[in-house]
């Protein structure tokens, strides 16, 4: 039974646990958990109907600091856990969270396939370009040629562009935000959670201990562009960009929006765009599943009855067994 009315408004503080995060001082993760708590409060998500699922790494500890049902799972597996929970009980609001190593490294296969499924989930990735918990090795998003102070030698693998990967994998909501832009991050998370389908929010997040390249100062810098001083970080909406597909049946519009998104999400230039690059409303996996399994129009999978009050198993097997009768 999904709660419809609450007897009092939920406050952000009620989404906090009594635990103090053990992240380093100045870690971008603090900004992200605050924004998660704020967004859940803004959407008035009942904590008991919310399920936050993480992988392993610094960000893996996130559920322990947020007062909703939480699962701190295996390295790279937050998405399979999120899919399993959401498909079994679609009444839950399921949010997956994890680091860039977790999602784009050891969990990259799941990242791609989650896009194909368009399950109604939100995936928040803490992207700081390093594996912090094991002392700062390069993560899949670190660019080639770079050498944060934790690396003994310059990095000679290409960095992956997770947003472009999400676009080609089928994610239906693709956004980038920044850990210290509290308002933008909160609003983006709200939009992602409200989006019906698979949503990715890639959050740029300074690691003050190991990544001395992507610091708070780096993101706050201004750059010279065409003779003007411009901030490094800017919002897509500033120049009227709109990544939302208005008519998913209009293949021309879809193609245009995909191409525009691909151009804008790239981080080849020095400036960093924040916002929703692409959004499209397509049938969710859950909706398609109901077509294949009509019983799910009546029950969530977890609620399909199979025993009575006396705990007798009540499933009538005849439809499956009759074919074997001789």
């Amino acid at each position, binding site marked *: 039974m999904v709660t419809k009315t609450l007897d009092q408004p939920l406050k952000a503080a009620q989404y906090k646990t009594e635990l103090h995060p053990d992240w380093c001082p100045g870690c971008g993760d603090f900004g992200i958990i605050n924004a998660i708590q704020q967004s859940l409060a803004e959407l008035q998500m009942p904590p008991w109907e919310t399920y936050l699922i993480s992988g392993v790494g610094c960000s893996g500890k996130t559920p322990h600091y947020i007062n909703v049902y939480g699962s701190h799972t295996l390295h790279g*597996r937050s998405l399979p856990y999120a899919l399993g*929970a959401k498909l079994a009980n679609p009444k839950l609001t399921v949010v997956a969270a994890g680091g860039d190593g977790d999602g784009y490294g050891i969990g990259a296969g799941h990242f791609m396939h989650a896009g194909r499924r368009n399950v109604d989930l939100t995936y928040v990735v803490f992207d700081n370009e390093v594996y912090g918990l094991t002392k700062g090795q390069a993560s899949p998003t670190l660019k080639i040629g770079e050498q944060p102070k934790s690396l003994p030698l310059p990095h000679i693998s290409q960095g992956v562009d997770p947003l472009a990967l999400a676009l080609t994998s089928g994610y239906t909501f693709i956004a980038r935000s920044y850990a210290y832009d509290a308002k933008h991050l909160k609003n983006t998370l709200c939009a992602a959670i409200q989006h019906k389908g698979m949503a990715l929010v890639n959050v740029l997040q300074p690691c003050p201990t190991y990544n001395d390249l992507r610091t708070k100062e780096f993101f706050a810098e201004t750059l010279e562009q065409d003779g003007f001083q411009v901030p490094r970080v800017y919002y897509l909406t500033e120049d009227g960009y709109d990544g939302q597909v208005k008519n998913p049946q209009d293949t021309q519009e879809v193609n245009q929006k995909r191409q525009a998104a691909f151009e804008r999400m790239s981080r080849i230039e020095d400036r960093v765009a924040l916002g929703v690059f692409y959004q499209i409303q397509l049938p969710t996996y859950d909706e398609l599943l109901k077509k294949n399994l009509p019983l799910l129009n009546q029950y969530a999978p977890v609620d399909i009855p199979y025993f009575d009050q006396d705990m007798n198993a009540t499933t009538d097997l005849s439809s499956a067994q009759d074919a074997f009768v001789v």
Partner: protein
Amino acid sequence: MSGKTDISWMIGGPQGSGVDSSATLFSRAMTAAGYWIFGKREYHSNIKGKHSYFQVRVKNEPVLSNVDPVHLLATFESTTAEIHAHEIVDGGALIYDPKVTKPEELEMSKSVVLFPLNYDELIQQMADETGQHVTKLAIMKNVISVAASLALLGVDLSAIEDALKGLFTGRRAKLVQSNVQVAKKAYDAIMQVAGWDTFAFKMAAPTNPPAKGSRLVINGAASCGLGKLKAGCRFQTYYSITPAVDECIFLEEHPEFGTVVFQAEDELAAVNMAISAGTTGIRASTSTSGPGFCLMAEGLGWAGISEVPVVVFDYQRGGPSTGLPTRNEQGDLLFAIFGGHSDVPKIVISPGDMHEAFEDSFNAFNFADRYQTLVVVLPEKQLANSTQSIVPFDDKALKIDRGQIVEADKDYREGDVERGIQKYPRYQVTESGVSPRPLPGTPGKIFWMTGDEHTEFGHITEKPEIRMAQHEKRMRKLDLAAKEIPLDLQYKLYGPENADLTIVSWGANKGPILDGMKVLSSEHKLTVNFLHIRLMCPFPADGVAKILKNAKRVLTMESNFSGQLAQLITMRTGIQIPHQVVKYTGRPISETEVVAASLKVHQEKTERVVLTYGH
């Protein structure tokens, strides 16, 4: 009319040519005629072209296994006879297409009776009568071989019509008539061949034939699938792998139950999705085979430490690595018990036949819920792909056990925020080891799960005293399971209490051993009993030790190289088993081999017998 009460029939052909369908038709026809069948299916890891065969044994009473000899070999191309003709017994018969098979070139007994069958001519006649093109009718070779076989065995043609009606239903029902028509032609054609009426292996009329519609002709994969459905499993994940995929497809073919069958991107996703689904309260399972099971090891550790009910089926096949992908082995026993780092409270069960497959599949979910942990079920390819006529599963009095689930407080009022946001000590340390479990979605019972060691609320801790308390609590659940799981589900001693020879085995070797015991007793005057072990973890050490200590001479019989059950018994009981019979060709142990190996151990005191029969 007198006749045989136990014959072995075989059909073979290239994969994709309908060998399976022929065997299914034959099995159902013989069952419809009042007999009992047991069949094994052997095939390559290949889609089309390589040799496959199906061997079906027919008896006048319930039959649990195959024998090695063949009484009637049905072929429609040349390879099957080249490979299997030597297995035909003296006085047995070969049905063949004289256009492609030259009997004089075959290595076989001189007394084999030859039954040439002009397949092309029969199919041409059908083409002329129906107006269809011969290429469309080529598949009828299968019905032709089966009908010819029935004629030789002295079984009435009506049995094939019964079988066809059962197989072709709904939109395919119109196929019955033409198939019956061609079957009749084949039946008549055989009766034109000299020697058909004197064939030495005609079946005696069935004694007390069971009523029509009173039995199932079913394989192990479907038996497991039915058990899962009955248990309420409504969430199944898998990554395609032979032979586990058969069960997954069976579940997918029945959308009416609402079961979410999810084909995941790999076994890592498959197992972790099932575990996560398990946290929501749904009865969740994943099915795989050896290589996929290896990939799942990390996830199983998480289910163990987070105390999540989940059921994992490992349909064992030949290994290591890709090994023999479509062949039989019991090679995963020790891995199923010990695979994964550290100590995990894990229940491992292995069914021995169709009824046990149904029952264990059902019980696995009760155990998973009751002990809040992972249950591994270990069938083999042998069980999954064997076909048997059986009395239907008794599913009338089955009880569901959900274990301890915490609901919202009785006086909780919907929308009460203050109470709704309360947390709950999910991992309370209890005497039994089982802690009441809330499900996400329950107001006021918020908790956390983690693969790290954790407090009662599920938060990370590294405090030694909490680590000890939680680790001990989890492992205690195994003691509870060992105490509570009924003994007859743990192990069973078949045969007399005192015997010359005690065979210890597990899994689907049960069938050939039980059948073999009868032969050993009736033909060789050797008293044999048989200890079949089903609960592998927690291991029923006391019960097994008691039986072994009373036994005169003990041998283990297993389908793996190293005698994994023998090792497990030594580890758990300290008892060394003096004789081992093993088979690791990838083919199942037959009744014939059980008899021969038992006699060898009994007479020659052989320490290690390696079985090799079968193509």
